[in-house]
């Protein structure tokens, strides 16, 4: 159970890292400034979790 939890947690953090990369990729690609703001706002909780802050 303990090992299973650790594996699932690790996958979860990899997933967060992957989504963060996708958001940053979209942020670079987009030409609409409103979308840029939205991508940055969406990215914040992902970064906070990725760096183990909240």
């Amino acid at each position, binding site marked *: *159970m*303990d090992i299973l*939890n650790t594996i*699932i*947690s690790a996958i*979860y953090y990899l997933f967060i890292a992957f989504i963060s990369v996708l958001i940053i990729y979209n*942020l*670079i690609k987009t*030409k609409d*400034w409103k979308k*840029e*703001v939205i991508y*940055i*706002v969406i*990215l*914040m*909780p992902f*970064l*906070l*979790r990725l*760096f*183990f*802050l*909240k």
Partner: protein
Amino acid sequence: MKTKSIIRKVLLSTAGLVIVVFAGIEFYQHRHYKETVVIGDWVEVKKLGDYFEGIQGSVNDCNVFIIEGDEPGATSLILGGSHPEEPAGRLAAWLMVENARIQTGKLIVVLSANRSGTTVTRPSGAYPTKYTIPTSWGGQTFRMGDRWSNPLDQWPDPEVYIHCPSGQNLAYVDIRNLNRTWPGRANGTLTEKTCYAYMQLIEKEKVDLVIDMHEAELQYPVINTIVAHENGQELATLVSMMLTDFEGFSIGTEFSPKNLHGLSHREIGDHSDAVSLLFEAPEPFLDATRGITGEKQLLEGKDEFVIKAGEHGLLFAPMDENGWPIDVRVGRHTSTILQTFESWNEYYPEKLIVCFDVPRYAEVIKNGIGFYLKNHEEADNKTIVFE
């Protein structure tokens, strides 16, 4: 890509990064803030991990304070911080650890039953991360917490939480709720292991009476009450009568539902020899219709929007412009504990617990909680414990 567009992206990203850094610093400081406890040389400090290896070294390997009397008697375990967003439960436990003397029996106190939950506040809740109780030396600061274990310590949550051993389906988030994971599992999640560790403590210390201290929103029907397992119903009823008659505040009794699993008042009674009680005090801070969710509201318990809810008959406890200050809520808990010991002694004269030097309801209100907290700056290093 045009230069203009690049400059805009860089500027927006920098602004976002600044917000993340400032928020990150606040979250980090909250998670690592050290609260102080000043203890007398009669207090023994153990760790929860001393009772169950599986919790050793984890965020929930909290301090366990033990005060033993000269004469043998009953052993009582007092849990503060089962739900760390209910500060009166923790503060009442703090007053016990820093002030209580035991003549007969043994008192075991925990300040942060779910320590992980004290290191985070509700995501998007805009809660204050800390609060300060005024004292003669300036003030003592405590971590504000959440109802659930920190997602950094236990994640992800399942789709449905299946309680062990009952098999009852509970809300997914309650797999991180210490008061839904009793009696716990040795190989379960962090929160389940924490409950399992307390069950080991109860067994190894031969605990006779467990008291779990909480607070509730006024829009929740279980409030201003003692919730009792059937093994503690008579005791709770006597305590409720005595407090209502002699201390000037009313507190009811509720019987722990047999089919609602994971709660301390149900599972500790079912899975150990201990009598199990849970106390609820009123905390307007938790009400859904509250105003600004700040430190002031948390400590003063005043809120015009909760009063408005009362005018529409939506509350299960009275609420007026005086609110429910933290001193009143903590005083209710200390008096209810002391009265429980006194009533216990009437039922079990062969197994007494005699406790003194803990302030009662009227004293806490008159002098304030801060009067009974000990100044760590003046204390000997050996007497300071970090929580």
